[in-house]
């Protein structure tokens, strides 16, 4: 069936959009709803990926495994372990100020990466894990891809619907109240640390899910297969471009950013060989520039959160008293 192969590229693209869509929704729960600056997205992605890989592969010399569980078990295990690891991190670190939390999560992601690199008994170090099963993997290529797209799209849809329902529920309103005015929320008796932890764990579990979906697509995982900072950054710009606090927005952001990212690869592939390699790094420059453009011209994102028009507008009441020093920026986040 030749005609199907024309769809190969778009289908491949779409699968990644679904995977990144999960990541973006996960980050949206953490940043968009709860105001938590998680710069360690790639870490939870990696936890999910490796967990599912370890759970679903047969026995291998020198590392733990041999569980040979079905793929759904791997996916569930991925989410569980991501949540489990997020929990203590959240309990300890979520009280920190946003930028301190960011630096700490960068450290966490780095630590996870080092573990993946060094702990041979767990991850097989640099050699990684291969032979990871793939649902419908035995079908011819085009059909297998379509099938996998169906799976990831369905999972994304479920995630989206579940999170949307939470977002419009009292839980969602409470999260936003905590994010926008923590002191007032506390005064009203809300258990702020607990709520934040919820959001953090939930978001991390969703990121773990994305990792599992990735690993069953790629069928292998090595520590350096993905550049952690690139993955983290792509997800962040998806959320910011799309509109943090809005699930449809971040999904739109995922589509746009991933398409730009992939298109740029096509463009750089056309260049003569000696430029092509270096130009590939230029793609990241482009993405970084994209973020600056968004922050300059549309900081609230394409689909802003329904109730607000500008990003976190904390402490407006100070503006009246601070007439002499708006530029000194005493406004705290």
């Amino acid at each position: 069936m030749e005609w199907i192969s024309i769809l190969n590229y778009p289908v491949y693209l779409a699968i990644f959009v679904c995977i990144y869509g999960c990541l973006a929704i996960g980050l949206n729960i953490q940043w968009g709803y709860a105001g938590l600056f998680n710069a360690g997205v790639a870490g939870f992605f990696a936890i999910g990926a490796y967990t599912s890989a370890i759970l679903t592969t047969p026995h291998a010399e020198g590392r733990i495994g041999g569980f040979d569980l079905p793929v759904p078990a791997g996916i569930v295990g991925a989410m569980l372990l991501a949540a489990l690891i997020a929990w203590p991190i959240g309990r300890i670190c979520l009280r920190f100020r946003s930028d301190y939390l960011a630096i700490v999560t960068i450290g966490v992601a780095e630590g996870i990466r080092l573990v993946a690199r060094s702990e041979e008994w767990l991850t097989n170090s640099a050699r990684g894990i291969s032979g990871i099963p793939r649902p419908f993997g035995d079908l011819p290529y085009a059909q297998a891809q379509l099938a996998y797209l169906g799976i990831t799209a369905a999972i994304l849809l479920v995630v989206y619907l579940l999170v949307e329902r939470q977002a419009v529920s009292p839980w969602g309103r409470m999260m936003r109240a905590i994010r926008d005015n923590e002191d007032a929320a506390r005064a009203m008796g809300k258990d702020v640390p607990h709520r934040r932890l919820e959001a953090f764990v939930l978001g991390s579990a969703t990121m773990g899910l994305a990792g599992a979906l990735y690993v069953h697509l790629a069928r292998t995982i090595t520590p350096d297969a993905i550049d952690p900072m690139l993955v983290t950054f792509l997800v962040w710009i998806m959320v910011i471009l799309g509109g943090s606090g809005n699930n449809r927005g971040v999904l739109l952001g995922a589509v746009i950013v991933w398409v730009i990212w992939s298109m740029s690869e096509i463009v750089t592939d056309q260049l003569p060989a000696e430029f092509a390699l270096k130009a590939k790094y230029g793609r990241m420059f482009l993405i970084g520039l994209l973020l600056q453009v968004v922050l300059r011209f549309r900081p609230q994102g394409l689909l802003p959160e329904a109730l607000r028009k500008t990003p976190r507008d904390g402490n407006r009441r100070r503006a009246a008293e601070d007439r002499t020093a708006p530029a000194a920026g005493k406004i705290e986040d």
Partner: protein
Amino acid sequence: MDLLSFINFFLLPGIVQGAIYALGAIGVTLIYAIMRYGHFAHGDLATFGAFIALAVTTALGLSPYAALPVAVVFTGIFAICIDRLFYAHLRTFPKIITTIASFGVALMLRSFVQVVWGVNTTSYVHGITRPENWLGIRIKSHEIITLVVAVALVVILHQFLTRNKWGKAMRAMSDNPDLALLSGVDNGKVIALTWIIAGGLCAASGFFLGINTELKSVMGWNILLPTFAAAILGGVGRIEGAIVGGLIVGIAEELSVLIIPGEYKVMSAFAILLLVLLVRPTGLFRGKVL
């Protein structure tokens, strides 16, 4: 282990690395003090400065040390441009937005270096330097120069901040921004000065990292965590804190291989950071609560 081994294999490398962190941490802490946000592009700005020095060295055939002042000045001015292009219009937003922007600038700087110089490791001079031997202490010439220049830069900065009118204006701005503005201090000028100083120190930090280890495009990003750990350990906004913090993080990192596997060396900075934030968030010298 005897004293000499301790000095040669742990203390000295720790101090040299600590000086590199201190130079970066001073910039981070200054930006916290004046502009009140965390600048995540600091590491990659150091990378940029280091590679500018490399460019000058290769293009003009100079010794790398002659290229250093060029890189320092260039990076300082470049930092002002970065601020004008990417941060200035975000000043009325919550500070975390600027931090996010700096995250993006970090990526841009890193990928720029990768496009121009590639991802392979390189260095300023090729070949092995032999250490000198002074009373049993083995130290290499570039280590000595690192420490001397770092001290000189700190002294110059201290003189500027305590003797110069604009240096005092910077301290005033850090101390009480409203009052500084009422006193007629030009916010824009102080910010520009801050970027020149921070950018220049970044270049020095990156340069010495390159000359003591090696040059690669992720070198700056790799020291972002220790640099921030040093600044926060010392107390955000306190320059003396950044220096002491840098030295402590550098030495602790070297010593950490005695208790944890070598691959995890960089996590000692993480551990310090976590400890400070949990036990005494204002740091050693009681930094600002922003």
